[in-house]
């Protein structure tokens, strides 16, 4: 079945005058806009957008949608991204007019139900973190990192301590150093040890009174819980520094251990990951931050507060860093997270992590005899396999395996990350997959491993395209259609 309709660009299908949306006649007795606005501000013509009819528009985008892999169509074990099922009921709840059609600046008295939900969410996320307060404001994890680091900077400035450095393990997400730089800090990389955990000697050698924050992902990007965490947080606290948790991997520890209980001072959540956002082909996300008590005054404003008169937005926060975005937060994603947490309850949340870790360990056990897994035979919610031996012996790369998996109807794992593992294949099955799915995926990987290298270099073979020329795309950028 050839879906030509979706290979053409909208602009190539465009016919001037066609449209998919009609507007009402003007019903107010005032002159045309051209007489209401100064001539030099007016454009000669509207922007040259495409003109398409409704059926062609729908067919175009519907056919495009079929050229995506998605959680609803394919197993999607993209490591670090927590691609779990997104319950449909959340979409229905988020679309309720009484929630979706609220203006962000309408008065507190007119949105008490919304504020109640957000107040609950602040408290629930604080409880899961084991920390004292939550700002829901950041739009995504990276913005949560930035907001928290700005909070840390404001905290130390308030204490009149000149701390300029943020320490970051070499296995960290790239957003960590990028956020630290944006918050005005110098970044210092900390090595991983042979176990894939923080190298304590390296940490101690770089830790001094210039250190503001140590950013740790725990479980880390190798899918390992760093059992030295109490020692690490102790070392940092002894130096008067703060410990930040990148909460990307919270799916492994819900209700099992809490960041605040293992010495973390501040963290972000990725609501779109842990609490099933959904991911929207790259967002929107939501990246609330949780902090310990001494940091609360510096949180972005406003927070939701509760008094005997009901709920209100509290802007009266003189030490606040300010705000990292306009309006309250990515409320639509928080709302889905709220529905998720309310559906699960305390036991359900713990079951999520237990099953996520069970699924990952099962898959690891199915694969560890066939693939090199550099960091042990146990994992938390994900693990990192390596194609380094396959590459050496048969010239098969992690990318070859990733591309060939697409032929089997599986989205590829995250490849070439974390950077500390060569030829990395980072696999996170999540708790929502069945044993049968995991077995079929493992069988596919094992089969692929034995296939002809050249056949793998040319994969995928069954999709509409194969191996786009990325070098050409970057060297001769074509970033828009032109007539």
């Amino acid at each position, binding site marked *: 079945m050839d879906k030509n309709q979706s290979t053409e660009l909208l602009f190539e299908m465009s016919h001037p005058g066609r449209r998919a949306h009609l507007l009402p006649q003007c019903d107010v007795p005032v002159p045309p806009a051209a007489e209401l606005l100064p001539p030099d501000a007016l454009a000669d013509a509207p922007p040259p957008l495409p003109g398409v009819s409704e059926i062609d*528009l729908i067919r175009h985008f519907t056919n495009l949608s079929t050229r*995506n892999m998605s959680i609803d169509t394919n197993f999607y074990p993209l490591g670090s991204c927590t691609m779990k099922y997104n319950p449909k009921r959340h979409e229905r709840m988020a679309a309720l007019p009484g929630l979706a059609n609220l203006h962000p600046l309408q008065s507190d008295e007119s949105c008490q139900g919304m504020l109640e939900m957000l107040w609950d969410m602040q408290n629930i996320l604080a409880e899961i973190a084991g920390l004292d307060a939550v700002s829901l404001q950041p739009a995504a994890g990276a913005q949560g990192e930035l907001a928290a680091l700005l909070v840390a900077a404001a905290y130390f400035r308030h204490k009149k301590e000149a701390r300029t450095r943020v320490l970051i393990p070499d296995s960290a997400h790239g957003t960590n150093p990028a956020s630290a730089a944006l918050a005005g800090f110098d970044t210092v990389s900390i090595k991983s040890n042979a176990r894939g955990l923080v190298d304590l000697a390296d940490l101690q050698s770089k830790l001094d009174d210039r250190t503001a924050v140590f950013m740790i992902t725990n479980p880390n990007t190798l899918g390992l819980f760093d059992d030295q965490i109490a020692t690490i947080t102790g070392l940092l606290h002894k130096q008067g520094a703060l410990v930040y948790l990148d909460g990307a991997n919270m799916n492994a520890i819900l209700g*099992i251990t809490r960041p605040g209980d293992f010495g973390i001072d501040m963290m972000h959540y990725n609501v779109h990951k842990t609490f099933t956002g959904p991911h929207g082909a790259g967002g*929107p996300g939501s990246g609330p931050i949780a902090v310990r008590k001494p940091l609360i005054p510096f949180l972005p404003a406003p927070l939701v507060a509760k008094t005997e008169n009901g709920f209100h937005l509290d802007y009266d926060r003189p030490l606040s860093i300010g705000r990292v975005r306009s309006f309250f937060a990515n409320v639509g994603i928080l709302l889905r997270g709220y529905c998720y947490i309310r559906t699960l309850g305390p036991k359900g949340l713990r079951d999520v992590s237990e099953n996520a870790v069970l699924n990952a360990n099962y898959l690891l056990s199915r694969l560890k005899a066939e693939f090199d897994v550099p960091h042990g035979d146990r994992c938390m919610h994900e693990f990192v396999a390596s194609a380094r031996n396959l590459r050496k012996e048969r010239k098969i790369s992690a990318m070859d395996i990733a591309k060939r998996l697409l032929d089997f109807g599986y989205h590829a794992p995250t490849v070439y990350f974390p950077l500390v593992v060569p030829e990395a294949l980072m696999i996170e099955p999540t708790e929502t997959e069945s044993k049968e799915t995991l077995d079929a995926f493992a069988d596919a990987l094992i089969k692929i491993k034995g296939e002809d290298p050249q056949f793998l270099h040319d994969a995928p073979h069954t999709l509409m395209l194969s191996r786009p020329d990325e070098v050409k795309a970057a060297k001769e950028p074509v970033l828009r259609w032109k007539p």
Partner: protein
Amino acid sequence: MLRLIGVESIADLFKNIPPDLRLDRPLAVPGALNEIDLSRHMVELAAKNRSADDAPCFLGGGSYDHFIPAVVDAIGGRSEFYTAYTPYQAEASQGSLQAFYEFQTMICQLTGLDVSNASLYEGGSSVAEAVLMAMTVTGRTGKVVIAESVHPEYRKTLETYLANLVPRVETLPTPHGFLDPDDAKKAIDDTTACVVVQHPNFFGCLEEVEALAALAKAKGALFVVSFDPISVGILKRPGQYGADIAVAEGQCLGNPMAYGGPYLGLLACREPFVRKIPGRLVGQTVDRHGKRCWVLTMQTREQHIRREKATSNICTNQGLFALRAAVYLAAVGPQGLKETAELCTRKAHYAAQELTKLPGVKLRFDRPYFKEFTLAMPKPVPALLSRILGRKFHAGLPLGQWYPALAACVSVAVTEKRSREEIDGLVAAYEVELGASGHRHDLLSKPGERLLA
């Protein structure tokens, strides 16, 4: 499964977590709800809110009650789009990638600029990202000049982003509702990385964009404009009046108000700055068979490659909302965008004309405006707005919270969705609550029936 793993219980899988760090009680979160009870709970929460469906919405300030065509929800609701992730594997993501390429193209068409990224978070952080980009492009870290008529929350966001970086933010007062080019001229110097204005601005007024662009250019500073995507249906596009970087809040392009988010940040710039652009870019290329296709490109700018030297820390953007904006723009087309902008302008002017007939109500600024305008009121504003809300109108934004000098002022926004009947009803509600007697009472039902539940 446990047998294959070689453990006896699930608890054994968590052995790496030291026992003294484990939580020895259930989380103190509310108990589980089944779908029926969850639905009831959410409907109850929703019922405690007064939405734009319950009371015509005349609130603006960066979020607007524009109409969302059904096609936008139909495509945005395709789970092949909304349950996918960032299109790292191009072969498995052509649907999203092509849609984002079309989005980028349409944002270039809207702005009259050369390059658009695949979205940022929202309007405020987009201003901050544009300023960071201008600092890199110009190599200047002296100061950033911004008009006070830029959205107060965008300015606050910018100040927060720059808190620990070198440049100083110089905010120029706009007592007459726009940035006077003479004031701008005095402020812009050789250390200025960029001049930032919003057009139409937070008050709805037009800025002297062409003069300001020339002043910025004369000193080697970039001209950054936050624009209203609907307004370019009739107003000149940023590229036409000399903007170097255009940013916008894209909520108005087919996205619900949703109490503030998720929204959609737009950022477009002139071609020479392309390597400094923040966020994801989709580019066209060919596959190994020579077939046209799309990929994420120029990723060496980004945090996952460049880490602390990246052009921005952004990773997740607003993909689904970029898709929705693309569907919206393709659905309305050039003529629909023009008609939408035309309707907003005329209805706003009609509302202003009728409201200023009420005793003591005046337009605060003597400036041309697009779809929102600022009124000076003869009575204390917050109480007035609260009483009109009791008459089932979201009647305007009290400006005193951001501009103490405008404590007696209300900002009123009117979109294409507002009918003449709704506007007349709003005017009548103001009239009654301002205590002016008149002929409009018949347009209101008895106040008692309309009070908040």
